[in-house]
């Protein structure tokens, strides 16, 4: 499964990768495009080669920490409408504590490490880059 996709994400495809009769607990995280006021959609872009490398490293780290767990991740790129998923992570394990922990680990690492950026598109036609440190900056303008 390609970890980066431009198509809608389906939870089932991730579940198929991680689930097995030996792994009785599965934790899934879905991040969906949120309506922050006047946002109509979000354009996601990535440093593709590095994003793929980071995802591989994160999943390897999860495997080392929770050897019985199996984790899969898919991040969608391009224009994503309100309410649709930008990311899905599925972690299956024999015991639920491991499934929750592995899933949570991966989403926290995604937020910290994945070279992916979002540009919010507004109803008035403007666009702003999202800076999770709190500031948003209009597309194309200088640093403020």
């Amino acid at each position, binding site marked *: 499964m390609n970890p980066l996709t431009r198509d809608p994400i389906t939870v089932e495809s991730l579940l198929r990768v991680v689930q097995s009769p030996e792994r009785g607990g599965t934790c899934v995280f879905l991040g969906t495009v949120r309506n922050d006021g006047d946002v109509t959609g979000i354009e996601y872009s990535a440093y593709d080669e590095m994003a793929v490398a980071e995802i591989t490293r994160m999943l390897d780290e999860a495997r080392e920490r929770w050897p019985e767990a199996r984790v899969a991740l898919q991040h969608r790129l391009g224009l994503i409408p309100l309410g649709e998923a930008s990311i899905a992570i599925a972690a299956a394990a024999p015991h639920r504590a491991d499934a929750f922990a592995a899933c949570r680990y991966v989403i926290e690492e995604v937020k910290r490490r994945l*070279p992916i*950026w979002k540009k919010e598109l507004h109803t008035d036609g403007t666009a702003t*880059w999202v800076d999770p440190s709190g500031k948003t900056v209009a597309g*194309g303008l200088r640093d403020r």
Partner: protein
Amino acid sequence: MAQVTVRFFARYAELTGCDTAAVAVPAAATVNDVLDRVRETVPGARSLPPRPLAALNLRQVKLDTRVKDGDEVALLPPLSGG
């Protein structure tokens, strides 16, 4: 001398107007030296923040990391994946 490819993403690509630039730096130069060279040769790069996030060959690194010939340096705006 080391030839280094520099890549710009998201807002930084908008600031510089380019996706990629090639710069030459002395042997034993650091990512920070690459950044200084970029500011001299790419006009829009003067608007980059003083200490942007950087990656070297697909891994995040500190700005004092050494580069070598053929390396790829990427300048990354604040990450907002997920």
